[in-house]
Structures are given as C-alpha cells and as structure tokens.
C-alpha cells in the first residue's frame, strides 16, 4: 500500500487519513493547525520547508497553562514589564527549522496583541513582546500550544539566571588582541626589511612607544585568564600548561618594554600580541558549546512551576515551592507528581518513563505511596503530600552535588607534559644564564629571557584545543554531544563501563509485538483496532500502530475500565481487550518480563499479544568492541527475567546486577571508583542521575536530546548508540594525534632554543618561528582529525 504523508508533519497517515482542503492529515491536531494557519494567511509556513510541522503525541489538557494566571509566577517569568507592554522568553524544544523561525516571528499576524517576536535558534528560545491588556501570559502560551509549539516552562526558569556572558568577554579579548597585533605588526615591519637598521631614530622611538601603548590592554586584559589559571594550578601544586605560557608572556613583555624604554626599537611586541591572539583563537575554538543542550540539569528543570492545591473545598493554583507536608493536591492527566505522596482518591496510572526508562505505566490504588517524578496518565487523582518537594526521595538523589573535583580535572596528560616541560625550560634557562654571566651579565639576562620567550609553549597549548575541539565537532555532527573537550580525555582513560538496562540498551519506543494463540483473521484484527484506537493507554497505542493496515469501524459501545482493559461492541461482536484477570477471569502470574494483552471475542478466548522490549541495534557489536577496552557491567532496576538472554550478549567476564535501586546504582559506582577503576556510566533516566554524577564520565542516552536528561558529561542520540564503541576508540586516535603534534611543536622549540642559548634570538626569528610552529600544529591537528573521522566514524 502506498503511504500518504501528512501535509503538516510528514508522518504516515495510515489507511484512513483526515482530509481537509483536499489534503491528507495524520490526525485532527495537525489538521487544526493547518486550518488555523491558512485562515490567517500563513500558508508560507509549508512552503519554506514542507512538512516541517510538529505532531503532538498527547492531547494537551486545557488547564495545562492555568498556573500562568498566578500573579507571582506570572511576574517572575516576564523579562520585563512596562505599562501594558511586556516581554517574555519561552523555551520551545521543538524549534528545528527555518519554517519554525518564520512562523514564530510572524506571531503578530496570528494575534494582534503580539507586537514583536524573535527567535534565538541555537538556544531554541523565542522572545515575545506583547500587550498585557489584550492577551494574558496564559493565553499567549496557549496560542503557541495551539500551533503545536508548546513552550516548556519549568521550575528553574523562575529563578532568574543571568545569561552566559563569558562568550562575549572572550570575543572582546580576541578583538582587542587582533587590533593590537595587526597595528604592532605594521610598526615592526620596517625593521625586518633589508636596510632596517638604517631606520631613523625618531621612527624607532615613535613605533616603540605606540607598540607599548597598544600592548598594554592585550597583556593586562586579553591574557588575564592565563595568569589566573596558572596561579590556580600552582595553588593546587600543579604546573599547568598555563604556567610556561604566563612566564613567556611576562618575559616577552618585560624584555620588549626594556627595549622600548631604552629607545632601541620595538622588541618582540609583535610576537607577543600574535601569541596571545593565536592562543585566544584556540580557546574560542575549544569553547564551542551546545547552547540548546543542558548538561547540568537538576530536578528544577524537570518539575512544573505550580500545581493545583485542594483546600477548604476550593481548588487554587500554588507554586510548588509553597507545598507543605499534608497538603492535598490534584494531579490531572499528563501532570507530574511533584513530591512523594499518597493517593487519597482516584486511580493512579503512573508513567515513570523519565525516571526509570520503563515505558509501561504502573497502576496505583487509593492509599498507595507514590514517588515524585512520575506522570499521571488517565483521570485526575487527589494526593496528600508526604514529603516536601526538596525532601522527596528522588529529588534528593538528583540534587547530590557532582563529586568531580576541580583539582582532578587539572591533572591531565597535557599538564603532565607541561610539568616536565616547564622544569626543563627553567633548568636550561638557568644553565645558559650561569654560562653567559661569566662573560657578560647583560647578555646573560637577555639569554635567560630569550629561552623563556622561545620556549613559550604556544604551539603546545594550541594542540589540545584544536585536536579536541575538532573531535568534539565531529562527534556533535554524529549525534554525540560533549559537555566540554575535557570529556574526550576522560573518555580515553576509562577502563570500566557500566550500562543501565531499560531505556539505555533497550529501545524506548520500539517494541516487539507477538500474538500467541490461533492467528487472528483480518476481520478480527479490525475489531481489535476499532477499539484500541480510542484508548490512550500505551499498550493500546502500540497495538493500534501494529494494526494500522486493518480498517477500523466505529464501535457501537466503548468503555475503558481503568487498570483492567477496554470493552466494547463492534459490528455486533463484544470485544474484550486487557489484562488476564479482566479478559479470562484467571489471576495473573507475577514476574514476567513482557507485557501481555488478552483478547476475547463474544466471550471466546482468542489468545494474547506479548509486547517485549527490543535491544538497541548494534548492541552485540558494541559489547564485542568495548570488551577489548574495558570491563563491562550492567545494573538494572528490573528483575532478572532477562538475565539468561543478557549474559549471552555480554559474554563471560561481565557482571550483571538486577533489582538495583537508584541508591544501589550510585553506591555501586562509588565502590568501583574506590577500587581505582575509571568508570563510564551510560544511563538514561532520572534513576541513573546519582550514578551518572558520581562516575568519571556519565553519558545520557536520549531519544530527543533537547528534552530533559539528567545531569551528565555527554548526551548521545539514542540512534547513535550503535556507534558508542567507535566513539571511544576514536578518542584514542585523538590522543595519538596530540602526541604527534606535541612532537612537532617540541622540535620547533628545540630549534628555537638553539638561537636563544647562543644569544642570537632576534625579533625577526621570533616573529617567524612562533606563528609558523602554531600554524603547522593547528593545521596538522584539525586536518588529521577530519580525515580520521571520515573512515573511523
């Protein structure tokens, strides 16, 4: 059968598409957005990038944004308010293409109260200026939701965070360094030309003083991070790469200033400015971050802003920070449970997929205790709070500060090299000084500073930013996003890998559906689909997708019994679908690793569907590859039903643990660490948050990298899981590149040292040698990473 793609979102419409305006749509939601946009003459949305619309999986509840009517919340969300005009910034994770930018910047056409809107694409944010007398914040959020750009409003947006300005200050430093570098180079040029010695004294004077003035902001502003970092390293008793850099800068500055003051020209001012400029460029290249991804999320970016509290027979919306033990709250369909609580009224059907990775909701009855973090799926429930939000079990686990220390981060390979490098430079400089001091003290000082200048490890310092920066870009291109370039070094060092099971090595959405019993006829399939397509239960949704090719009929009656199943009459046949107890009347047996859906037609038992998790593609290959590098462990919160299957995949020598609580997971990582292992933890849900934070490197696997993921060092698109082994092997290759680059830069240094020790280091030699070494190292590092990635990833 030919597939029809939805005009709005491009999804497959199945056998019975919704037709509007002669165009096919996959669902009524998509049709509604299309109708709204064409009514407002915004059809260009579909022209810029066809079928780029967003499909909403879940029907949004009407009161989802009701909390925006709360004054206090309203106030703290607005960027500013001036009379009837206000500005707000919404984070919309679904922004993904040019059409999105176009539509969101034409909000004024959609509603006249919007005066201006602009999108920040890298951050996936939209800034909206609107008239508060014509539209409320809630209506504005609902307007965005109506065109399927649902803003994500979470608790941490209430605490006004200042936007990161560090990037700006680095750009300023680069700009100033570039300005001074280019001007000073111009003044230095005459001296390098043949006959430069004939330059008139007045020019030397003017050029010298101008250069001195221009170098001041470079040395004291642009380069200040290097002094700070070198000093911080010294305090931790570590000689970091920044120490010889700082020494070099200071030596260059003092030596050249002395030349200028004595009226002898410019000295090495041009080399100094160039050196700092190149170093800053390296820093900028390394510092690329993924703005829309957040690696440091705690529960605040997951939790909602407010919840409905029931008190004295009335319902009102309160910010969740005001919740106290004993409060009664109302949790509606698709709302989050903000604190550990007990059900007072209603049927709980809690979806813990974000917490545990388990996609099947858990049924809870009145009186049951519920951990915070789950999402209610089904009718509203009333809860009584047992612990305040901050004291809830999982919240506490997520909040545990990362134990990764600053000091340990500084102890890396590069700093190891720089340790020996700096010591040998100081030894060489002192020896040369001692030798020359017997002949000419003035010359001795010159030689000493010359050694420090030429040994300034500019090329060495550029090696790492450019190698790791390129590696990080290549990884990001392939769907593996690193928090910073440090992670590459950590990944290279790991020797133990711990996997989570559910959601990490199994797929979240893909499942294996099998029918047990006499195979269903086409007519019977239709009967089942006619009922399940009206149910929002995850199992029903799975079955509906599975039976998409069978025609569906309108049932004569339909009833969904919570926690049991669905029953209805289709074409005069009574169809029961649901749990074993509901359909067959027999008690269900415990401990199974699959979900079963029983079917009966007019009280005739037809059999059951089993729905099983599937392992991610390439799991076995990954395991084989990773086994060579590290010892493998698996910790799962599930029971050991799959143990046999998994131990076959993991093979001998791997440790598999089941029935682990989130605290157990964290403790297990701590134990491995105490044994001196360098642990890589790969997880997905919030139950892994503690383990991810205490491991050396925590990788979080996510279907949608922009939605919530626990705090970690790297986020991996779940489809890229099959390449995990390749990524880790590639970090080893990056390291080889670094060692080769080190060798290149050291050979330049040794050549330069020859000039320095013999007292022949002229400004011209420095001006050639330093940029040449830097450029050749940068070119080698970036090009070889690019080439290697072509065939290795």
């Amino acid at each position: 059968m030919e597939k029809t793609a939805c005009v709005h979102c491009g999804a497959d419409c199945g056998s019975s598409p919704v037709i509007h305006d002669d165009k096919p749509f996959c669902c009524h939601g998509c049709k509604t957005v299309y109708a709204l946009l064409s009514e407002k003459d915004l059809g260009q949305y579909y022209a810029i990038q066809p079928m780029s619309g967003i499909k909403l999986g879940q029907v949004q509840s009407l009161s989802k944004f009701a909390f925006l009517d709360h004054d206090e919340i309203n106030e703290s969300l607005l960027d500013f308010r001036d009379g009837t005009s206000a500005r707000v910034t919404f984070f919309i994770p679904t922004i993904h293409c040019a059409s999105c930018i176009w539509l969101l910047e034409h909000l004024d056409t959609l509603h006249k109260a919007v005066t201006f809107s602009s999108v920040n694409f890298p951050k996936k944010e939209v800034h909206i200026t609107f008239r508060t007398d014509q539209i409320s914040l809630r209506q504005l959020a609902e307007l965005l939701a109506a065109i399927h750009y649902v803003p994500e409003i979470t608790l941490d947006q209430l605490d006004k965070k200042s936007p990161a300005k560090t990037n700006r200050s680095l750009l300023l430093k680069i700009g100033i360094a570039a300005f001074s570098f280019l001007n000073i180079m111009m003044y230095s040029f005459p001296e390098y030309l043949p006959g430069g010695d004939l330059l008139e004294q007045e020019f030397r004077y003017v050029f010298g003083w101008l250069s001195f003035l221009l170098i001041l902001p470079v040395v004291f502003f642009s380069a200040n991070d290097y002094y700070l970092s070198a000093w911080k390293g010294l305090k931790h008793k570590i000689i970091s790469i920044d120490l010889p850099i700082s020494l070099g800068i200071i030596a260059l500055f003092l030596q050249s200033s002395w030349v200028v003051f004595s009226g002898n020209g410019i000295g090495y001012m041009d080399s100094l400015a160039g050196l700092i400029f190149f170093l800053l460029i390296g820093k900028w290249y390394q510092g690329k971050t993924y703005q829309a991804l957040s690696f440091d999320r705690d529960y605040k970016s997951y939790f909602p802003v407010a919840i409905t509290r029931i008190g004295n027979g009335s319902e009102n919306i309160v910010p969740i920070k005001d919740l106290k033990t004993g409060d009664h709250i109302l949790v509606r369909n698709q709302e989050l449970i903000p604190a550990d609580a007990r059900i007072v009224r209603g049927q709980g059907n809690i979806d813990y997929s974000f917490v545990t990775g388990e996609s099947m909701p858990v049924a809870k009855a009145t009186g049951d205790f519920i951990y915070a973090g789950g999402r209610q799926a089904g009718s509203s429930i009333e809860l009584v709070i047992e612990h305040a939000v901050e004291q809830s079990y999982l919240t506490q686990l997520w909040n545990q500060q990362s134990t990764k220390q600053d000091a340990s981060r500084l102890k890396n390979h590069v700093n190891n090299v720089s340790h020996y490098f700096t010591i040998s430079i100081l030894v060489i400089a002192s020896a040369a000084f001692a030798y020359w001091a017997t002949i000419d003290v003035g010359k001795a000082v010159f030689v000493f500073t010359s050694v420090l200048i030429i040994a300034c490890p500019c090329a060495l310092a550029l090696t790492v930013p450019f190698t790791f920066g390129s590696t990080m870009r290549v990884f990001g291109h392939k769907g593996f996003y690193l928090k910073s370039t440090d992670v590459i070094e950590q990944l290279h060092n790991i020797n133990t890998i711990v996997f989570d099971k559910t959601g990490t090595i199994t797929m979240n959405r893909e499942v294996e559906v099998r029918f047990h019993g006499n195979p269903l006829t086409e007519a019977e399939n239709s009967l089942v689909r006619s009922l399940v397509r009206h149910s929002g239960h995850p199992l029903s949704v799975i079955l509906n997708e599975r039976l998409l090719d069978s025609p569906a009929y309108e049932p004569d009656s339909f009833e969904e019994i919570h926690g049991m199943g669905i029953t209805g009459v289709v074409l005069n046949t009574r169809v029961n679908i649901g749990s074993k107890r509901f359909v067959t009347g027999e008690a269900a047996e415990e401990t199974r690793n699959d979900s079963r859906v029983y079917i009966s037609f007019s009280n005739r038992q037809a059999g059951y569907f089993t729905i099983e998790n599937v392992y991610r593609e390439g799991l076995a290959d990954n395991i084989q590859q990773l086994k060579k590098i590290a010892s493998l462990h698996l910790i799962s919160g599930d029971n050991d039903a799959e143990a046999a299957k998994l131990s076959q995949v993991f093979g001998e020598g791997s440790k598999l643990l089941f029935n682990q609580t989130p605290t157990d997971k964290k403790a297990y990582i701590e134990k491995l660490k105490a044994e001196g292992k360098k642990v890589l933890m790969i997880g997905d849900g919030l139950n892994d948050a503690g383990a991810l934070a205490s491991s050396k490197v925590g990788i979080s696997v996510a279907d949608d990298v922009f939605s919530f993921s626990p705090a970690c060092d790297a986020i991996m698109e779940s489809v890229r899981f099959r390449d995990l082994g390749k990524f880790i092997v590639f970090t080893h290759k990056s390291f080889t590149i670094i060692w080769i680059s080190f060798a290149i830069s050291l050979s330049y240094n040794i050549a330069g040292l020859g000039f320095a020790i013999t007292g022949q280091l002229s400004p011209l030699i420095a001006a050639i040698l330093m940029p040449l070494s830097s450029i050749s190292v940068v070119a080698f590092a970036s090009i070889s990473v690019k080439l290697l990635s072509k065939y290795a990833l």
Partner: protein
Amino acid sequence: MAAIIFLIILGIIVAGGFLVAFIWAVTSGQYDDDYSPSVRMLFDNKLPTEENATKETESTTTITKN
C-alpha cells in the same frame, strides 16, 4: 616625515573606529545568536494577496480623489 606620522595617527584612528564598532557589536549581543539572522534575511516579505492588493488600489484612489 611629518606625513608618515600623520598617516600613522590617521591609521590608528580608523582602525580604532572599527575596534569600537566591534566592541559595540559584541556587547549589544549581535554575536549571541549566529544562526537565526542568517535564516531570517532569506524570508520573503509577505506576498501581496488579492485582499492586500485591493486595499492598495483603494488607498491610491483615495489619494487621487484628494
């Protein structure tokens, strides 16, 4: 001699002007988002629809009447 000194000062002033412009651009946030503007500039202005076209002719007729 004096000409060269003059040119150098002129050069510094011109280059300094660009430096100031760069500093202004950075501090006013133009470098914060380096993607969206590149897409935005490619959007066509709204195509004149029939409704807009009639409005335009109406306004021109009013002008001629006056």
